[in-house]
């Protein structure tokens, strides 16, 4: 790559980001590092002439580019005016954000010669300063904008014309609305008739669900609560549901609950379908649910899916144990450390896929 006009050839680890390369290998420490995830703007440099975050560009992926750091702008006429204005308007205190601020300020002056205060503030939203309250920085940029017209800037390169094949579009299969869908398939070591009878007995089912308590049963209406824990997050959903049974060993549960502690609301619509599989029974469970409120911020769909899979597995084992007369497995409370590990791992993998 070319850094501040000089060609540089180096062998770097792929994971080394551009800001570290500039600071550690090139000793260009004017590029500062704040957040290292592209939010604070302290590391803003020019890549091929345009401002960019050096902390989320990888040096090895910058093969052949032109990098200009704050050091490389020493003799730049616009930067000279900005430095003077920053001094005059007291636009810096500790100086940590200043290199990034100056690179962004130069871009504003060159690209938006007619910018007013509101626009300058909008454009500065990507550079954080913890000292000045931005007042001095905004004034400094406005001063340079008002002083003299910026030199002519090279117009951006037009995009190359291309020809893309446009085949017939695939038919639309929209993702169903109404929340996340969760599907589970369980094999229970008990005959169909016994499992079907159990499914129609909410008290028995509740006993098989760790943390669940049935408080009311009145015809199709049931009420109860369910204690859940996921790492540091704990909740007790209290609510009610309506259970209906159809032909073909099909049960439908519609319910809603609320966690009093966090105020999170849960609505769910579940279908349970049973099918004989020799001496055993296959239970297909499909749940459409939505979470609203504070817990929904953390309980991402993939996390909930992994969590529910663990619960369903335990329920299946407990149910089979009850129906076959063997002692039920330990009715462990959900959300132990073991579970958190598997949930977190699955969540991270799901982000990858």
């Amino acid at each position, binding site marked *: 790559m070319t850094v501040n006009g000089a060609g540089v050839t180096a062998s770097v*680890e*792929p*994971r080394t*980001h551009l800001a*570290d390369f500039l600071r550690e290998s090139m000793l260009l420490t004017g590029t500062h590092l704040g957040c*290292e*995830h*592209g939010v604070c*703007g302290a590391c*803003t440099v020019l*890549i091929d002439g*345009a*401002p*960019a*975050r050096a*902390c*989320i*560009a*990888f040096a*090895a*992926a910058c*093969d052949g580019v032109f990098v200009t750091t704050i050091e490389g702008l020493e003799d730049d006429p616009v930067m000279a005016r900005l430095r003077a204005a920053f001094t005059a308007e007291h636009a810096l205190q500790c100086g940590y954000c200043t290199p990034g601020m100056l690179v*962004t300020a130069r*871009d504003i002056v060159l*690209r938006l010669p007619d910018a007013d205060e509101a626009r300058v503030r*909008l*454009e500065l*939203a*990507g550079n954080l300063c913890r000292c000045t309250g931005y007042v001095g920085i905004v004034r400094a940029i406005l001063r340079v904008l008002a002083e003299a017209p910026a030199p002519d800037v090279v117009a*951006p390169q*037009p*995009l*190359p*014309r*291309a*020809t*893309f*094949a*446009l*085949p*017939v*579009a*695939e038919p*639309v*299969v*929209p*993702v169903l*609305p109404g*929340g*996340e869908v969760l599907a589970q398939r369980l094999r229970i070591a008990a005959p169909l008739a016994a499992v079907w009878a159990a499914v129609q007995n909410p008290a028995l089912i509740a006993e098989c669900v760790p943390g669940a308590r049935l408080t009311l049963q009145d015809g199709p209406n049931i009420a109860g609560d369910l204690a859940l824990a996921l790492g540091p997050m704990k909740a007790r959903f209290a609510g009610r549901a309506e259970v209906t049974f159809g032909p073909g060993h099909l049960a439908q549960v519609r319910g809603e609950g609320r966690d009093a502690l966090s105020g999170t609301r849960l609505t769910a619509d579940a279908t349970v379908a049973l099918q004989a599989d020799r001496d055993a029974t296959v239970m297909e469970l499909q749940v459409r649910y*939505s979470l609203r409120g504070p817990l*929904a911020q953390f309980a*991402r*769909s*993939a996390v909930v899916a992994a969590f529910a899979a663990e619960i369903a597995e335990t329920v299946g084992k407990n149910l089979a144990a009850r129906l076959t007369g063997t002692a039920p497995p330990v009715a462990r409370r959900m959300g132990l450390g073991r579970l958190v590990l598997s949930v977190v791992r699955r969540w*991270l993998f*799901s*982000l*990858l*896929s």
Partner: protein
Amino acid sequence: MKAASFDLAYPVDLAEATALLARADSRALAGGQSLGPMLNFRLVRPSLLVPIAGLAALRGVEETAQSVTIGACVTHAAIADGLVPDIGLNVLARVAEGIAYRAVRNRGTIGGSLCHADPAADWPTTLTALGADALTSRGRRIPMQNFIRGAFQTALQPGELLVAVAVPKLGAGARWGYVKACRKPGEFAHAMAAVLIDGAVRRAVIGATGGAPQMVGDAMPGGLPGVVLARALAEAG
């Protein structure tokens, strides 16, 4: 934080890129404005990164009488600067202008944003409302409603790359509204909605949900589910 170790393999063309991306645990790197932070946080730890932003096959634009097709690695800044032909009402440039910050728009790409499929990103919701199609390296043309399958999930198969996005042009008299709620300009939206009224097409799409953008329907909704959608409808007139 610093990213965990990974390998980097520069493909010379699309064929090599798709071959590399067929490898287990590989990930395409376009502008890297979402992937970069996630790598630094070690939320993602691919073993192989395949930089594709330099591939000429992904950087072009095509305009026909019916549509504008944008290469996957065209940046938000290029779209905001009007380097992509207008589909009508300057819609694409207006959306691009509101994405993150200029320093991010200079690197971030339309295709990268779609493939990352963050529910709070601008393109998944707006391109769904515009009825755009994803064109892939396997010759598939996937309607945007099928392409985004959920939070961070797309219809792409391993080794399949998004090549371009075909966006239909708007008819005369079309109306468009797009509103997102952010506490600070440039941050990820907490709520968003886009509305397109174009002849017989009447679409309202709600984004920044826990999953894929939700199409309210090809008919205008009777009620207004939320203040953001209401504002988008108002903007569309």
